[in-house]
């Protein structure tokens, strides 16, 4: 009986951890007959979103079999890049109050026409949290909240979404690659495209 109880507890803990730590959630299975071209697009014009899109595109390229469009090409293809795309949240001051129905899907479809990709990974990094301080042996990194949605084309159906936090290294002025690599790995695995 005691062994049975411990198994239940382990299952509960594992479930909680997996559901709480997920950075990507698949809503619809991607079409098997689709191509593999993917573009990562920032939904906001602020530096956090632009940098996160750049870094995430690099990591997805490394972790998956997607043919990721280089950010330089994304910037050239989209007129007036970066463009503001109304994002999946009602407010995002200190944390993101997500509402996935709020995304301007019309604008997403317009962007795809310029990019001609099979998948669009759009991310918004609307705010950041500065959690303070540096010690002799430790450093608390500022944390950037990110919310993302993935759309499949043709059709523009949303196939997945995610909300996660990424640490930012102030000294090097870049996101911690390990954090984004983990997000990219999970995205690749859940869409059955790991390397």
């Amino acid at each position, binding site marked *: 009986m005691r062994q049975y109880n411990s198994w239940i507890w382990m299952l509960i803990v594992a479930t909680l951890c997996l559901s709480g730590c997920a950075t990507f959630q698949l809503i619809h299975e991607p079409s098997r007959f689709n191509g593999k071209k993917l573009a990562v697009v920032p939904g*906001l014009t602020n530096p956090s979103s632009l940098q996160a899109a750049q870094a995430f595109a690099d990591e997805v390229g490394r972790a998956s079999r997607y043919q990721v469009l280089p950010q330089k090409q994304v910037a050239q293809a989209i007129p007036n890049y*970066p463009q503001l795309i109304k994002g999946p949240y*009602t*407010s*995002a001051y*200190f944390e993101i*109050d997500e509402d996935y129905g709020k995304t301007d899907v019309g604008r997403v479809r317009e962007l795809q026409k310029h990019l001609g990709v099979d998948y669009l990974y759009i991310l918004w990094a609307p705010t*950041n949290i*500065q959690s303070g301080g540096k010690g002799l042996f430790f450093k608390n990194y500022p944390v950037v909240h990110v919310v993302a949605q993935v759309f499949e084309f043709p059709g523009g159906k949303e196939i997945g979404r995610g909300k996660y936090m990424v640490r930012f290294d102030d000294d090097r002025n870049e996101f911690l690659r390990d954090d984004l690599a983990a997000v990219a790995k999970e995205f690749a695995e859940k869409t059955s495209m790991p390397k």
Partner: protein
Amino acid sequence: MPSTRVFEWKVWWLDDLEIAMNNSWLHGALAIVAFSVVLGGCGGGTFFALKDLNNPIKPTSISVITGGSEDADLKLAEYLTKEFKERTTLQVVGQDEVSKAIPSYPITVKTVEEKSGEVAWVDPSEKVRIEKIQAKLKTNYVFVIWSKRLMKRTVCSDRGGCTNTYSADVYGNLLEYPSGKIVSHTAFNKRNSDSFLALFRSKGYYVDELLKNSAEGIVDEFIKVTNAGKR
């Protein structure tokens, strides 16, 4: 990196207050003053002031653009546009139209802050960029607005329960065209604290309220100064 920052700290001052009051009358009085200052603090500054009183605002047309690219900047511009539309006789360009007219909107407009942040002006290097924006929006006035240093402070009592206080510095300049002159300045700090009702409200409710009140305060003063209120 964006400027939005959170500093969360816990202060056990409710108990300190009680101890101080037990110690002496003077300490008690000081603690009450400090207590009132903390609770009663609701910011301060200038909501809207003309730079030159001899150069009045003509009730013609206006557009609001945000000088920052955070969510708070966008919302503040939205609320200010709404207030101008609803309460003044000026022709007001909506934020959707602004977004369509300006490539890569919102854009970051640099500021020059003076007197330890008491006043902020549009950086002279931005003049040409704002002129181009005005040429697209075709309004006689362009209001540039910033929400800076959005912060959250959490104060907890020893007996349980915490209060979050949100604060932001709001800066603004009204530019007149075709001259391109800055004709007004806005610089104030606004605060808003939550209550137990926060449990039933959306995550951004208290910051939204803070920004709405900021926009309302600017237009209150704008109407007083320009006499451009709807009757």
